[in-house]
């Protein structure tokens, strides 16, 4: 049955409403004016006006990651779309469900180098999970609903819909609701084959030194993923480590949690990975930041890899038992099989394994010394954690040293509390992401842990934060350096600090005040707690400029091209182990 007549723009809005969208992040322009006109005439969807399209995508990512819903973006043609590309790539790398609507010049002008024309589907093809160019209004409702299905089904990711202006203005009665749209081909496998589950529990039951290595896939599997992971790991009594993306999928204060692994992971997590005899990877992808040198990566272990994306299997590391499926469903099946089989781990072996891990843990690899007035960055972040841990807190970060310290010193007890750009490593991610998180959780404490360099990459979004009075707290760990670049230059390039000094920084206090926000600056360790508390208690957006010591490096560190056991624990370690030529070329 035909629906009522409406134009393409109204159909877009109707589709969003039917998909349960309550907020979109966007920026208007010529090609999307019909959608903005339709937005103006309705009250179901709120629009958050960002200050640059890149901010819109990161905001939608923050919204999506902290809620488990799909983030929706609306930008115009040409530069609107090209500005969104970094955010789309970020969402693709970190598997975040995004639907991004881009305006396009009218169909008859496509290919004519029209004003604000760009080949958006061409440009975004490699940085989206899928994309569409709508050439016929009759396809519009199907494509809208398909995009939502594709974005969130299987391994989530960004989907672009390119909307020519004449399609938005054309009228039709072709609207159909979501339930009438079924995708022709895309049906990812979510349930594992039962025989693989059987094999997995048998491998686990036979393990003497097992470790769970859980990543973002557990978080993407919904709250149940984390619940089941926690229950299963506790039932077994085995150690569990998380990737950067997986932090919060297992409660960090649990004694079975050995911390984050990888390049800046804990000593105990990396050595446990190296020495384990069974690795159970749930929803992680053996990223190079996790594995270090591949031929020395956990050389003596049997590896189980649970992933919803078959292309993650055997991509970097060959595994013994691949299991394709949704992390939560696989964990549930494993637990059932475990219980039904009456299995138990070898308690004596497990005890020996734990005493070994405790020995590594006793190294206290994240220790640092805070003395005197000058604030160590680790201390700043640890105090921030201590003073916010009992609150309803969400953390976003930019990219660099502060990001790694936040990952090391914050203890995430539940999923969806930690939003960081893991795969792409996008500086400028944290501020707009925090906007999206705060919009989704208006009464929660949302903090962007930032560096003074990263924050300047999307600083324009302070204006957006001010407009909507989103009480985001921007905590700038200000060491006046692009700290991670400086660290690599120190370790790898003979301390030739080429272009990594943050010169001509703004006065962040005045900058905040110019947007009508609260600005604070802390330079003395004795003032830190009081000022952080004041920041927390301020019910408005705050920019907190925390001056920290300049020469601190992130440790532990597995230098690129090195193996897990070749970890540097502190500054005095580095002289003994020069970094290999092979390692130098790795990023």
């Amino acid at each position, binding site marked *: 049955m035909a629906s009522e007549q409406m134009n393409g723009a109204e159909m877009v809005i109707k589709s969003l409403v039917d998909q349960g969208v309550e907020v979109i992040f966007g920026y208007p322009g010529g090609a999307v004016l019909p959608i903005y006109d339709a937005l103006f005439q309705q009250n179901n969807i709120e629009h958050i006006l960002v200050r640059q399209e890149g901010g819109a995508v990161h905001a939608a990512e923050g919204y999506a990651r902290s809620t488990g819903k799909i983030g929706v973006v609306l930008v115009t043609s040409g530069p609107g779309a090209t500005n969104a590309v970094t955010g789309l790539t970020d969402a693709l790398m970190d598997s975040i469900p995004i639907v991004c609507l881009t305006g396009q010049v009218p169909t008859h002008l496509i290919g004519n180098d029209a004003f604000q024309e760009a080949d958006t589907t061409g440009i975004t093809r490699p940085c989206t999970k*899928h994309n569409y*160019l709508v050439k016929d209004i009759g396809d519009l409702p199907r494509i809208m609903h398909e995009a939502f299905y594709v974005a969130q089904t*299987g391994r989530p990711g960004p989907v672009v819909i390119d909307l020519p202006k004449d399609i938005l203005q054309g009228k039709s009665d072709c609207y159909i609701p979501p339930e009438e749209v079924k995708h022709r*081909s895309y049906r*990812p496998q979510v349930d594992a084959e039962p025989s693989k589950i059987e094999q997995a529990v048998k491998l686990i039951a036979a393990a003497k030194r097992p470790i769970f290595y859980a990543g973002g896939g557990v978080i993407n599997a919904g709250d149940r993923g984390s619940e089941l992971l926690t229950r299963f790991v506790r039932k077994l009594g085995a150690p569990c480590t998380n990737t950067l993306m997986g932090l919060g999928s297992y409660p960090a204060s649990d004694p079975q949690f050995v911390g984050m692994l990888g390049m800046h992971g804990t000593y105990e997590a990396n050595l446990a990975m190296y020495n384990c005899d069974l690795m159970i990877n749930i929803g992680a992808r053996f990223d190079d930041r996790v594995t270090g040198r591949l031929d020395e990566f956990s050389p003596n272990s049997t590896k189980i890899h649970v992933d919803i994306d078959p292309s993650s299997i055997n991509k970097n590391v060959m595994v013994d038992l691949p299991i394709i499926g949704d992390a939560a469903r696989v964990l549930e099946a494993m637990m059932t099989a475990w219980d039904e089989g009456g299995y138990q781990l070898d308690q004596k072996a497990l005890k020996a394994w734990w005493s070994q891990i405790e020995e590594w843990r006793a190294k206290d690899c994240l220790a640092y010394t805070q003395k005197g007035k000058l604030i160590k960055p680790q201390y700043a972040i640890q105090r921030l954690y201590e003073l916010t841990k009992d609150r309803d807190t969400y953390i976003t970060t930019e990219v660099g040293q502060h990001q790694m310290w936040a990952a090391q010193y914050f203890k995430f007890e539940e999923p969806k509390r930690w939003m960081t750009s893991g795969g792409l490593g996008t500086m400028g991610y944290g501020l707009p992401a925090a906007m999206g998180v705060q919009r989704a959780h208006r009464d929660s404490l949302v903090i962007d842990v930032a560096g003074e360099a990263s924050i300047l990459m999307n600083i324009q979004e302070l204006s957006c934060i001010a407009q909507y009075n989103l009480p985001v707290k921007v905590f700038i760990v200000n060491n006046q350096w692009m700290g991670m670049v400086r660290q690599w230059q120190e370790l790898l390039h003979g301390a030739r600090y080429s272009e990594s000094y943050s010169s001509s920084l703004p006065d962040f206090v005045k900058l905040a005040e110019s947007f009508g926000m609260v600005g604070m600056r802390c330079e003395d360790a004795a003032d830190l707690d009081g000022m952080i508390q004041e920041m927390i208690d301020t019910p408005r957006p705050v920019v907190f400029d925390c001056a920290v010591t300049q020469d601190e490096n992130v440790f532990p560190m597995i230098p690129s091209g090195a193996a897990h056991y070749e970890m540097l624990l502190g500054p005095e370690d580095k002289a003994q182990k020069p970094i290999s030529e092979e390692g130098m070329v790795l990023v």
Partner: protein
Amino acid sequence: MSPKETNIEKRTIAVLVDNEPGVLARVIGLFSGRGYNIESLTVSEVDQLKNFSRITVVTSGTPQILEQIKAQLERLVPVHRISDLTNEGPAVDRELALVKVAGAGEKRVESLRIADIFRARVVDSSHDHFVFEMTGKSDKLDVFIDLMQPLGLVDVSRTGVVAISRGPKGL
């Protein structure tokens, strides 16, 4: 060093896709973006009603890379099915070439004689040229084209490999 590069294999992969704009670009972009090889690639609609196209791609790599290629192809949204025709039982593969040879006298006669041996057909001719059409396995086409080289080879156009599995089962 890793044993990479030492065990390079060649595979013919059939990919059944929705015949929609950009689908070929998606497949090609996947190969170029991830640094995989394409030795040949053909595409055409095969089912107008169901709107299916079939892509046949010949690629090479280590077994691990080849598995990656298949997994990456399979996760493209408009891809319905893929089949590794080299690995999944026997398959027939064929290629068509159009070969233009220009010349006169003994060389011209010789080219026709060889064409006959190879069962190539003449699809265009004048007093001083032939266009041969030839179908067969790629290496057979290679040999034919090599033989035409000294006889006045002017132009070659090849379709790339199309392939289908032997036996009664479809893709």
